[in-house]
């Protein structure tokens, strides 16, 4: 099918990163989403995060399910392998992919339908296994690709385009993550790149499973008055609990960490995540405090955003399973096959 002739986006800065690559090198093919779709902004933020972290494109694995959101991996880092799999199964497919090759950096893109309905069980168990990946939920409160049905993240009272209110309690990936022992939990907004990019970078550096719930409005089916996932509503009700600073490994900035009241968390890979403007009654390392804070502000109808919870102390799936540092898919066959002699010896037990 002929591809669209929109003019390709222009990036003023052709600034190069440590690999000598420009941000262009992290882009993908032209988006086919609706003009104004929040998902395209998330794509742009991912492009920037990968660029700034100087990730090698071919060492990235892009995973997704099915949905408008799940289409987006085609729109970033065309130099990376991508897998647009089946509806709701991405977390499980990623688990297998990561099991086979722990050397790649995994970026999973999902939607609220993909993750909170059909794929809910898989996501919960991916959290349990603490598989090392960045897991982005592009959350618009509806099933975009199937034309606007409520998803499980729709808030009570939020109105559909036709005006019917949703009546069921929403599934909040943040609360869910807290209850399941998730080790990295963030919420952001597609319209706030300043906040989103550092969070994505921190997520990419995290030791295990990093959930980032991004409110990403669906301009076509859920951006109307009465929706609690619209641009307007989110802007008006968004509360930033903190600002995230991502400090790459061995950066001189390391010096002033912890100073002037900022909370600093050293990441597994040597980088540091620094939280600024953290309220006194809040500590991103204390599950109880976080839950309490969120409950309180959620009660006030506020959409709390930021890197909400972080715990670098929990081993990921590979550490738990004592697999070698090198990718299992790279281990030479000779090391895997016990050989005929061992077989003969073994068979003495079968007599």
């Amino acid at each position, binding site marked *: *099918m002929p591809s669209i002739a929109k003019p390709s986006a222009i990036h003023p800065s052709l600034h190069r990163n440590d690999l000598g690559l420009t941000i262009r090198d992290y882009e993908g093919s032209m988006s086919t989403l609706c003009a104004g779709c929040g998902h395209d902004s998330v794509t742009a933020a991912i492009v920037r995060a990968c660029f700034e972290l100087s990730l090698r*494109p*071919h*060492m990235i*694995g892009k*995973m997704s399910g099915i949905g408008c959101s799940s289409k987006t*991996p*085609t729109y970033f880092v*065309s*130099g*990376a*392998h*991508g*897998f*647009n*799999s*089946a509806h709701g*199964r991405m977390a*499980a*497919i*990623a*688990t*297998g*992919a*990561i*099991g*086979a*090759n722990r*050397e*790649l950096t995994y970026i999973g893109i999902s939607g609220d339908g993909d993750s909170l309905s059909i794929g809910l*069980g*898989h996501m*919960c*168990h991916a959290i349990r*296994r603490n598989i090392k990946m960045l897991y982005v939920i592009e959350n618009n409160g509806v099933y975009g690709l199937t034309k606007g049905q409520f998803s499980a993240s729709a808030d009570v009272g939020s109105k559909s385009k036709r005006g019917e209110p949703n009546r069921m309690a929403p599934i909040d990936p943040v609360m869910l993550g807290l209850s399941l022992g998730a080790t990295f939990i963030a919420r952001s907004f597609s319209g706030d790149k300043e906040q989103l990019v550092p969070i994505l970078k921190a997520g990419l550096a995290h030791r295990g499973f990093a959930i980032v719930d991004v409110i990403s409005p669906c301009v076509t089916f859920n951006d109307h008055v009465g929706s609690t996932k619209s641009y307007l509503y989110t802007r008006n009700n968004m509360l930033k609990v903190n600002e995230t600073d991502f400090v790459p490994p061995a950066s001189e900035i390391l010096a002033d960490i912890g100073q002037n009241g900022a909370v600093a968390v050293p990441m597994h890979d040597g980088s540091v995540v620094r939280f600024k403007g953290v309220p006194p009654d809040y500590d991103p390392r204390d599950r109880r405090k976080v839950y309490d804070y969120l409950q309180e502000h959620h009660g006030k109808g506020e959409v709390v955003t930021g890197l909400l919870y972080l715990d670098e102390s929990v081993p990921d*799936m*590979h550490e738990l*399973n*004592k*697999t*070698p540092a090198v*990718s*299992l*898919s790279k*281990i030479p*066959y000779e*090391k*895997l*096959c*016990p*050989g*005929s002699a*061992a*077989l*003969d010896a*073994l*068979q003495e037990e*079968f*007599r």
Partner: protein
Amino acid sequence: MLRTGVEIATRVNDFAIKLANVNGTGSASANGLLMQAIFRMGIPVSGKNLFPSNIQGLPTWYEIRVNKAGYTARALDYDLMVAMNSQTYDHDIKEVRKGGYVLFDSSWPLDPHLHRDDVTFLGVPLAEMCTQSFRESRERILMKNIAYAGSLIAVLDVDMQIVEQLLDEKFSAKKAMRESNLKALKLGYDYAREHFDPLPFRLEKMHENSDKILIDGNTATALGCVYAGATVAAWYPITPSTSVMDAFTGFCNQYRRDKETGEMNAIIIQAEDELSAIAMVIGASWNGARAFTSTSGPGISLMNELLGLAYYAEIPAVIMDIQRVGPSTGMPTRTQQGDVLECAYASHGDTKHILLFPSNPAECFEFAAKCFDLAERFQTPVFMLSDLDIGMNDWVVPRLTWDDSYRPDRGRVLDAGQLDEIKKYFRYSPEDENFVAARTLPGVSAKGAFFTRGSGHTKLGAYTEMPDEYQEVLDRLLKKHKAAAKFVPAPVIERRKGARIGIVTIGGCDPAVREALDILERQGQPADYMRIRGFPFDESVEKFLNGHEVNFIVEQNRDAQVKSLLILETNVPKDKLRSVLVYGGFPLSAKWVIEGVLSQRETYAIHS
């Protein structure tokens, strides 16, 4: 070989015994001990465990057939019944053949209504003896089993040295256990020696098993996966497939763990369900690892959607389907061959998959390894259809062998070097003579990067919704599947003089059908034999079927699934194919095969 219900000459190494126990009382080890001892005596033997879907308290049976001629399929008439379960006395005692024997626990008198004049009752006060000789109640229960084993050793002439040897090996670590077992053994042994005359059937050493082993199919399957170099295993527990992963885990700890670092060159993931198990296999295979899952019918049903993804996106996947009785939950501890059609055409839309049909643990080992080569060469899901009988029963099979020169057939995978040499890489073309295009693995080179999708794509890998572009790819997939026919294991074909009919089967039906063939020949009904071992079907399958006026397809399901596949996927006319269907859930017996064939005698023109 079958005997009529009446005649009872003294028979050496030719009889069948059945042991009726209560589930969860530890009878398995006693029964296994007997079976293994007979095996070590060099005598052809088989053991079938007929256990319930329950952990403790329900009836369970174990059958041992000894046959010097090597017929070890299930026998249906029992010379000796060891009746240890009062709940099933009625049923069990009825099953003994005329002139047979019943060994029971005479600690309590048998209810008169159970009496039969045409069988001999051998009462051994097992409970009594064990209560006197052992203190702990759990021990008493366990030792009762060892005690009846002792009695059997006596009446059947099992070689006591071998039995003691086995106990030594088994309890090398636990001396105390060895002693109590020996003690219990002696109790039963001495009692039997004292009170019973020799039976008209007994054992005598032979030399049939020197080059053989005793192994179950699931263990052999796991071993095959280890030798094939599988590094990622994902599964969800389900009877009767669970022991595949138990064994794989054990072997990985044994062979894949670095003694110093403790690191293991494999990852075994207990998934949250079967959808995720197959998803993990697909993800891992996409990433270049040899990955597999083991499951049973219900799991296959749940995997249906993703199997279509792997087929259409051309991602290798290996699925060990240890079949059990369906539909639905069915009978989880009974055997059947009921997933053939579902596996062949799994998923919506037009799909066809590669199937392998092992007939015993030895082939499980060989075919399990083969699955990975096929899956990677053809970049598609490959199923090995084993079943509960093959997978969970101990079979006597030739020693497994491994060719150290074997190297995995990874199929067409471009490395960085090869990618440099080509101008531009496209996922789905060019294709080779088997209609397979080269894939690339993540993490190798940006030049090889492509987007894997289960949605419509062109032969270049681009998204499409255009009929011709879509069709081009789908048509190649059909050709690719056909091309696999030359690569799956060829059928085993054996011809007999004067044979005008063919008898065809798959998998674990093999021993019963072979026994039936011999008997039929003796009855003047020689038949040629073909055991199909893979799908898509090789030409030789077509040739065999067309070469006979009538072919009987023997299979363990209601709907003639193998026959259906033969009708759809060969050019053989339907009227050449007849069915013999046995699907009650117990392993096949030659008797049923013969009855099935002869009952249709009138329906075909052939034979003098």
